[in-house]
């Protein structure tokens, strides 16, 4: 009854989308939530896991999502997107602007290739190995080096998270990524 052990090759390089001239809005350093109306303020939003915030908000465009708001504290910022299909995606950025985690919750899956970025192809391959190794269906948890990807839920209510441990702010617990 031993699920297979995974040995995964390194993921591909980090991709950067072209900058299309979105304006960055300063949020300030204090803790708080700032809800921004996208129609009024086109802005630089979060990007793909492992990517840099200097890339454009390709996720938002690809998912036809609205940026619901940005929460920021001294250690990280959370960009909350609402995909058109109703699913909420939260992207966690370090203070230096790297996406170190993404989490989603909602009725349908997000475009995982978009939110997982360079980690998606390995995820897709390894999810098959894990599922067939466990010889059954259920939620998925995959660790690839210091990248952890978890998928759970069922049609009409999915949840998931992915994070890069080495990029996480010191002392931050994975359970708080949701």
């Amino acid at each position, binding site marked *: 009854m031993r699920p297979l052990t995974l040995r995964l090759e390194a993921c591909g390089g980090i991709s950067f989308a072209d900058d299309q001239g979105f304006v960055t809005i300063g949020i300030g350093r204090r803790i708080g939530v700032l809800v921004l109306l996208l129609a009024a303020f086109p802005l630089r939003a979060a990007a793909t896991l492992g990517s840099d915030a200097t890339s454009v908000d390709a996720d938002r465009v690809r998912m036809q999502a609205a940026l619901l708001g940005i929460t920021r504290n001294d250690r990280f910022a959370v960009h909350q997107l609402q995909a058109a299909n109703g699913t909420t995606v939260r992207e966690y950025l370090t203070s230096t602007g790297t996406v170190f985690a993404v989490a989603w*919750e909602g009725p349908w899956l997000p475009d995982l290739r978009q939110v997982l970025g360079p980690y998606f192809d390995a995820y897709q391959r390894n999810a098959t190995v894990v599922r067939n190794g466990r010889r059954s269906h259920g939620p998925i948890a995959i660790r690839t080096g210091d990248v*952890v990807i978890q998928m759970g839920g069922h049609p009409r209510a999915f949840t998931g998270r992915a994070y890069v441990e080495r990029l996480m702010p010191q002392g931050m617990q994975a359970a708080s990524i949701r």
Partner: protein
Amino acid sequence: MFSLLLIAQANAPHCGNPGDASRVNTQAVLVNAGPASTYFNGAFTSVTVCVPGTNTCQTIGGVLVDTGSSGLRVLASALTIPLPQQTGGSGIPVAECGQFADGFTWGPVQMADINLAGEQAKNTPIQVIGASSFSSIPSGCSNTGAPENTLEDLGANGILGVGLFRQDCGIACTFTGSSNPALYYLCSSGACQVTALPLAQQVQNPIWLFSSDNNGVTIQLPAVPAGGLLATMGVMKFGIGTQSDNALGNAQVQTTDPGGNFTTVFNGQSYGSSFIDSGSNGLFLLDSGATGLPLCSDAPDFYCPPTLSEFSATNRGANGQSVSVAFHIGDVDALNETFTAFSEIGGPNPDPVDWGLPFFYGRSVFVAIEGQSAPGGTGPYWAY
């Protein structure tokens, strides 16, 4: 054990007997290694599909009973009769991308009369997974995860979704535009585009289309002791309170949120996205920090505590009804590899509590379908 199972499998399907007031509403559910001979904690049954309105029928065994989804899906490789293709308004074939936590199913939507025990759902849309004539998977589908389109990847000949909902998608898939979750596609010459699809043309939970016994289902599996069993066997009974054998009794009714979830309280914390899923092979909850259970050294998707760990949680429905649930989790790596039924399999989960097949062992679990009138009120609800 094996002879018993073989007899049960042979007797499982009963073809329809329309007009019989006391029709057979019960059929066998087997927990065994399944048609790929590899599965554990999978509940399998047989489904008879027919070309609509004809006696051209086929009984397909090894179909996974899944309360976490709605609708029948069968592997094209297991299907030997030609079912008519569902088409969109202009006669273009409809295909589907079925979304699941651990992957997707891709294939055409076709029509079948579905026979389960003595019940029949006529001319019902089902998904035929992995059909060779629909081999080109659109990127919008493959970008949702890993494919589950073969016997090896699915571990079953199909999935019988007998969950809380009438359709697998519902109202969201009837809308055009970006809010459509992209489950249904129109496919022409190998090119597929997302389409809106009316409710009646979506893949259907067959139970609500039965002429009677159509408000839900009860799944009853015997208790499984720690250490597991080679295999076990129970029943699924169609209808709730519709016949002498499917009374709700003193089962507690728990309604759900629109997504089919309820709240689980564990160690004083409330987790609002919990669900009951016979198609998940374990009890999946939280993480090592919250449960105190170490992950397996070789598999971060299961717990491997050194001793059997006993727990209690409280499930609370949207209607406020609470039920205490005792469960245990043991070392997955220490289990007997020749067995297929285990009560102590557990693992982590990104947020909700996924009450998988071990929850069903030793219980009668009622699933009431949305909009259907049942003794405990109108579905959707769980009761146990």
